[in-house]
């Protein structure tokens, strides 16, 4: 029987939705028990949110002032210690999990499965390689602890309605002081988070300038959508890099993705493959984005986007 430990991602107050996706992935491994580990300075709020997710056995809380920021060098030895007795240790394939989990795997002396997109068995998984242009089915030796990151776009959130026990734990390991948090800056926009939004409006180089991008924001606000961008638009300086969608940016799976003035480079398509519905608006009818779009409209985006915004309002 599998015993799975999931490392919770959070900001000290709220549990990140990526954790629920990991639980969903873990629950596909039959006959398993799933525990969630919250590492925090004060984990009470996050732990009670984790306890409400269906399928969670118990929530372990390791509180330490050093856990106030998610530094991989500080968290990894605690996770590795608390992993004793577990057959699997999962984290999300977000920048949090990508930073932490390989460090945990190395401390445990095992390899890691990156970006699980499907569960084939307790030790067998599908994961994307070559920027999603190929899918690898990989098998971990039966006697090894499975350390993995879960591609959050590939799994639905687990249901609510759980009532798991919350248990304080003390890994009792010494923590390094060689890595220190200085600051974090984010463009607080009041818009939905790009990674988890149900609707995303994204713009490409065809917007022409940061000023041109305003019509994207206006449409997104009308639709209650998050804003995204292609790498070309980010590199051209129209928007900040945390809006980048694609293999080298964020990989997302919204219900609706509007690609506006985005040609559809391979690396961009990798980031939106799992979107439920893709709408493409582009003046070039030959653009590769139309090959993958569910609905396509060829034309001048500077005329179409304001018109769309108007018609959606009526």
């Amino acid at each position, binding site marked *: 029987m599998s015993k799975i430990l999931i490392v919770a991602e959070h900001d000290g107050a709220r549990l990140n939705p990526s954790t629920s996706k990991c639980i969903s992935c873990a629950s596909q491994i039959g006959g398993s028990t799933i525990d969630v580990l919250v590492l925090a300075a004060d984990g009470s709020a996050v732990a009670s949110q984790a306890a409400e997710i269906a399928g969670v056995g118990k929530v372990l809380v390791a509180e330490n002032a050093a856990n106030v920021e998610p530094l991989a*060098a500080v968290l990894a030895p605690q996770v590795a210690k608390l992993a004793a007795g577990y057959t699997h240790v999962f984290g999300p394939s977000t*920048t949090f999990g990508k930073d932490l989990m390989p*460090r945990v795997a190395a*401390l445990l002396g095992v390899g890691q499965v990156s970006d699980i997109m499907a569960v084939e068995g307790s030790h067998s998984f599908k994961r994307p390689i*070559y920027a999603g242009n190929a899918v690898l*089915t990989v098998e971990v030796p039966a006697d090894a602890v499975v350390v993995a990151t879960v591609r959050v776009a590939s799994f639905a959130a687990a249901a609510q309605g759980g009532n798991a026990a919350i248990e304080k734990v003390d890994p009792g390991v010494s923590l390094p002081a060689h890595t220190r948090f200085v600051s974090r800056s984010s463009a607080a926009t009041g818009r939905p988070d790009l990674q988890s939004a149900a609707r995303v409006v994204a713009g490409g180089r065809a917007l022409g300038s940061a000023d041109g991008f305003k019509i994207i924001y206006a449409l997104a606000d009308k639709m209650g959508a998050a804003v995204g961008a292609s790498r070309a638009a980010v590199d051209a300086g129209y928007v900040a890099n945390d809006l980048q969608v694609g293999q080298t940016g964020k990989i997302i799976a919204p219900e609706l993705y509007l690609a506006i003035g985005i040609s559809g480079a391979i690396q961009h398509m990798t980031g939106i493959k799992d979107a439920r519905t893709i709408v493409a608006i582009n003046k070039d009818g030959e653009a590769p984005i139309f090959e993958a779009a569910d*609905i396509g409209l060829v034309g001048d985006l500077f005329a179409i986007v304001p018109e769309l915004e108007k018609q959606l309002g009526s």
Partner: protein
Amino acid sequence: MRRIMVGVKRVVDYNVRVRVRPDNTGVVTEGVKMSINPFDEIALEEALRIKEKGLADEVLAVGIGPADAQQQLRTALAMGADRAILVQTDASVPPLSVARIFRQLIDKEQPFLVLLGKQAIDDDNGQAPQMLAALWDRPQAVSCSKIEIGDGKATVTREVDAGLEVLELDLPAVMSVDLRLNEPRYVKLPDIMKAKKKPLDTLTLGDFGLTDAAAFKTVRVDPPPQRQKGIMVKDVAELVDALKKKGLV
């Protein structure tokens, strides 16, 4: 000697459209253009810039791969690396083994900084830098977009989902680099000639006590599922209708 160690992996060039082998054992690599992993190229460029600022004395490029990986190490030398080491093997070397090899080289070379790409664009694992930092028990900074080397410590900006995060690390440390850190330089012909005379040492996996490198079994490799081609609409009104029919607006 203030030394920076840089990882240089030989991978299928990022412009190549990768095709899965008909027998599902991997992807086609015969007759395909090979290059330095683009993230490794950025790591090397950063190491060279740190040296050019007078903050390092030597840049050492390390590759693990087949004999042909010498080509990528020669390119690294032409870009400006001072010397190179190839750990030669035809086997696929998993990230933990890569980290173990680098860990042993660190004992010998004593770098104050190890710069690696945040991931290789073939396996897309994104593990070796973090694993190396763990085995070395030193700081890590993943996906760096800015690196400032100070006295015995470094300040780095890294790209995270929420935006940008700034960390201070004691040196020595491992850093993995992201796209926006820099733009790698072009190699000039005279540099290619000069690179031929720079030292390139070859070692084997056996020199590191590693024999069987593969940890996971590759069951099969498949092409990704294809999306169905959708419909074209002629104007905004039709688009709004189509979205309404799908219950999306």
